[in-house]
């Protein structure tokens, strides 16, 4: 009964979304206030319906209702409660429902926090989002209904892939989806601006916090995914340039360009068409990403052939969204374009340069991701594009970005001179080159790549601190400095911290695959690892071989690590669970490989890593997210709301 209610809510959501999309947009076009007034309640109703449907599916998972096909495929009665709930988004159908929940959640947020916006704007934005919801609802109802019942009810479910049975899965996909879907908001704002034929600083000010908020979620989502892959996959890698990762990274790169381009549009009224274009591309890429990851195209392009309905629908939907928005852009962008002048040496120029570089990087990553799929679908052979390609392309494009980042934040709007900039930045440049080139000597082997990575990171950190210090010292200025200013510096420092992590890991990590019997030791990165035993340990839905490894420095045992090799009951599939000792300056990482046939004594293959500064990668992402959050919360974005609140406060005091 409950799954049918969930299904019914989804069916009901379709006409609601369609009505919202059509009436609000038509209301905006014709100026009918009664139709426009439907936008907010319509969006909220859509959220309630989706949330109810999502709740029904969660309930089916929680109660182990294996008569529902999707539950039977992705859960199991022995699955711990937490994973039973997160298994809701462990497969294709549930992910789509989560996607829709996030979309309607953002719509709900727009409907609530948009009191400072004109009604025409709100109804157009919600109308566009409503139409996107129609697309997803149709996709789910026609091809990917999560509530389909089985006539043959299995005694137990097939289980969730053991890899996904991890706290990482509880947070990573929702966060990532929130970011993906959040990019629909600037997209909808752009479409609304094109329909309006007006794009001014006010528009940019309305759009900025939403774009930044989506970017923050995307940043956290990607970082969580990378961290999860690092500790769960057991290979010690944190980024594989896997198509799935690229799918999330592409919208991030374009989103980063977008939030900076929006800044120029707000402050200077420039780059309007470019900003619109970026928001269209960012959302198109996040749609592409969703489908790439969830449609099975990545396992094989021929998955399209086995389930042509899904494939055709996806292509059609992408064509409508991308094509439609580009046509609208071509027709209307002339109206929103505006002249304004800035000199070749100015903040605008540096922001533009980095914008172009970020987009170029995204294009290069997109090429590497899609090329094998295209070649395969044309039957021209099978090939793959590996990490070496992405590293070779990505690093050179991003290096100047790190350099110009600082110059952009030092340069004045509109007009500046090279001489002035040099004067302001010379001390920072000298110190960072000196430190960047000498620090690798302390770490051991000097290498040009490490020196460059460190120089650029120090360049960014130092420049940010110098600027913040100046702002702070100037007390009159300090009090009136918007929080977004500090947010910018925190985020930039985050980038630098992340780059330090990447540089140090790439430059100094050590890895050893060894054969060990009990009592054996191995030395890696100045530490000694001793295998002292292997025990059989039962888990809730698996059995594990659990190693005991002493981590030794000098004569002292620092810690005992317990890497595991798990075998899950439901699938008999083995899973490596690495043991990691984390500190601020290094991680040591042990994972247990297969049991080896030895000469009588039991031996194990073990993988041991020493990874200096690896946690800085995620720490940096965390700082970026905090900085972005500070920027999104700037009070100038909700001025009218603040005014209303203060009125209320006064009343409250009077009462």
């Amino acid at each position, binding site marked *: 009964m409950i799954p049918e209610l969930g299904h019914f809510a989804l069916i009901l959501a379709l006409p609601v979304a369609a009505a919202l999309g059509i009436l609000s947009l038509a209301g905006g076009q014709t100026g009918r206030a009664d139709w426009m007034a439907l936008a907010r309640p319509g969006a909220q109703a859509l959220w309630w319906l989706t949330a109810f449907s999502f709740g029904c599916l969660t309930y089916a998972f929680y109660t182990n209702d294996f008569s529902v096909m999707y539950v039977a495929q992705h859960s199991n009665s022995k699955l711990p409660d937490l994973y039973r709930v997160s298994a809701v988004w462990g497969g294709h159908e549930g992910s789509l429902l989560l996607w829709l929940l996030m979309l309607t959640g953002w719509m709900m947020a727009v409907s609530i926090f948009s009191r400072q916006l004109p009604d025409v704007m709100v109804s157009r934005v919600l109308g566009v989002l409503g139409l996107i919801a129609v697309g997803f609802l149709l996709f789910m109802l026609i091809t990917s209904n999560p509530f389909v019942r089985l006539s043959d009810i299995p005694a137990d479910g097939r289980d969730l892939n053991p890899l996904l049975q991890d706290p990482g899965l509880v947070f990573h996909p929702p966060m990532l989806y929130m970011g993906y879907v959040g990019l629909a908001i600037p997209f909808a704002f752009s479409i609304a601006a094109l329909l309006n034929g007006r794009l001014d600083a006010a528009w940019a000010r309305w759009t900025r916090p939403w774009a930044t908020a989506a970017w923050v979620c995307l940043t956290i989502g990607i970082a969580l995914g990378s961290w999860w892959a690092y500790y769960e996959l057991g290979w010690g890698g944190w980024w594989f340039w896997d198509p799935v990762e690229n799918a999330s990274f592409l919208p991030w790169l374009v989103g980063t360009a977008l939030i900076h381009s929006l800044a120029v549009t707000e402050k200077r009224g420039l780059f309007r068409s470019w900003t619109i274009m970026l928001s269209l591309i960012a959302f198109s890429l996040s749609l592409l990403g969703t489908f790439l990851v969830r449609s099975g195209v990545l396992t094989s392009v021929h998955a399209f052939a086995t389930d042509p309905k899904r494939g055709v629908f996806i292509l059609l939907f992408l064509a409508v969204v991308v094509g439609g928005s580009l046509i609208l852009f071509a027709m209307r962008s002339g109206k929103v374009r505006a002249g304004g002048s800035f000199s070749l040496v100015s903040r605008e120029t540096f922001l533009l340069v980095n914008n172009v570089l970020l987009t170029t990087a995204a294009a290069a990553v997109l090429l590497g991701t899609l*090329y094998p799929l295209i070649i395969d679908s044309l039957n021209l052979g099978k090939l793959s594009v590996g990490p070496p*390609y992405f590293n070779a392309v990505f690093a050179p494009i991003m290096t100047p970005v790190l350099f110009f980042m600082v110059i952009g934040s030092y340069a004045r709007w509109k007009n500046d001179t090279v001489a002035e900039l040099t004067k302001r930045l010379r001390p920072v440049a000298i110190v960072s080159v000196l430190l960047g080139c000498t620090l690798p000597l302390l770490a051991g082997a000097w290498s040009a790549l490490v020196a460059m990575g460190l120089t650029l990171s120090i360049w960014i950190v130092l420049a940010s601190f110098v600027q913040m210090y100046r702002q702070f010292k100037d007390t009159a200025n300090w009090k009136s400095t918007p929080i977004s200013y500090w947010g910018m510096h925190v985020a930039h420092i985050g980038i630098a911290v992340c780059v330090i992590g990447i540089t140090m890991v790439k430059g100094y990590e050590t890895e050893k695959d060894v054969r060990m019997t009990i009592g054996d030791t191995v030395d890696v990165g100045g530490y000694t690892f001793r295998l002292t035993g292997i025990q059989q340990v039962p888990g809730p839905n698996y059995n594990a071989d659990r190693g005991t490894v002493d981590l030794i420095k000098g004569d002292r045992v620092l810690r005992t690590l317990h890497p595991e090799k798990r075998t899950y009951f439901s699938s008999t*599939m083995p899973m490596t669970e690495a043991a990691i000792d984390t500190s601020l300056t290094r991680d040591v990482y042990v994972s247990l490989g297969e049991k080896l046939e030895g000469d009588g004594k039991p031996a194990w293959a073990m993988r041991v890593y020493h990874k200096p500064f690896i946690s800085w990668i995620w720490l940096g992402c965390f700082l970026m997210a905090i900085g972005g959050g500070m920027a999104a919360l700037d009070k100038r974005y909700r001025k009218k709301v603040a005014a209303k609140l203060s009125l209320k406060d006064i009343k409250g005091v009077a009462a």
Partner: protein
Amino acid sequence: MTMKPRHKRTAMIVGGLAAIGIAAYFVLNAFQSNLVFFFTPSQVEAGEAPQNRTFRIGGLVKEGSVKRDNLTVSFIVTDTAKEVPVTYTGILPDLFKEGKGVVAQGQIKEDGKFTASEVLAKHDENYMPPEAQHAMDQAEIEKAGKTLK
């Protein structure tokens, strides 16, 4: 100095083209050296695979062919028609099993053995790597063609 809009546009276009040119250079350069092609065991047997260049093979791990010598593993990858011996040193992925699908990346050395630098087996017990499936489908088609003759 404030630029005239016309000059500004020219500067932007020139800058944009330069960026695209540089990027295209990096991309093509990296592309050429980093495309990893895939060959089925039958193709390798027929000598179609390149010497001294990294490529991928895929198929099934032949039952009973896995032999371990400390950390070095040797096994046979088959597409049910032809076989290729493979050696690999290191820890195999969790899902590596006899009779299951596998994809290996590496080079053919002088001894005619495929020396893998990477062994890929994805994380799903029912999962067959698409390349491995492709290899067996090709062999199947080949066989069918022969019986017709």
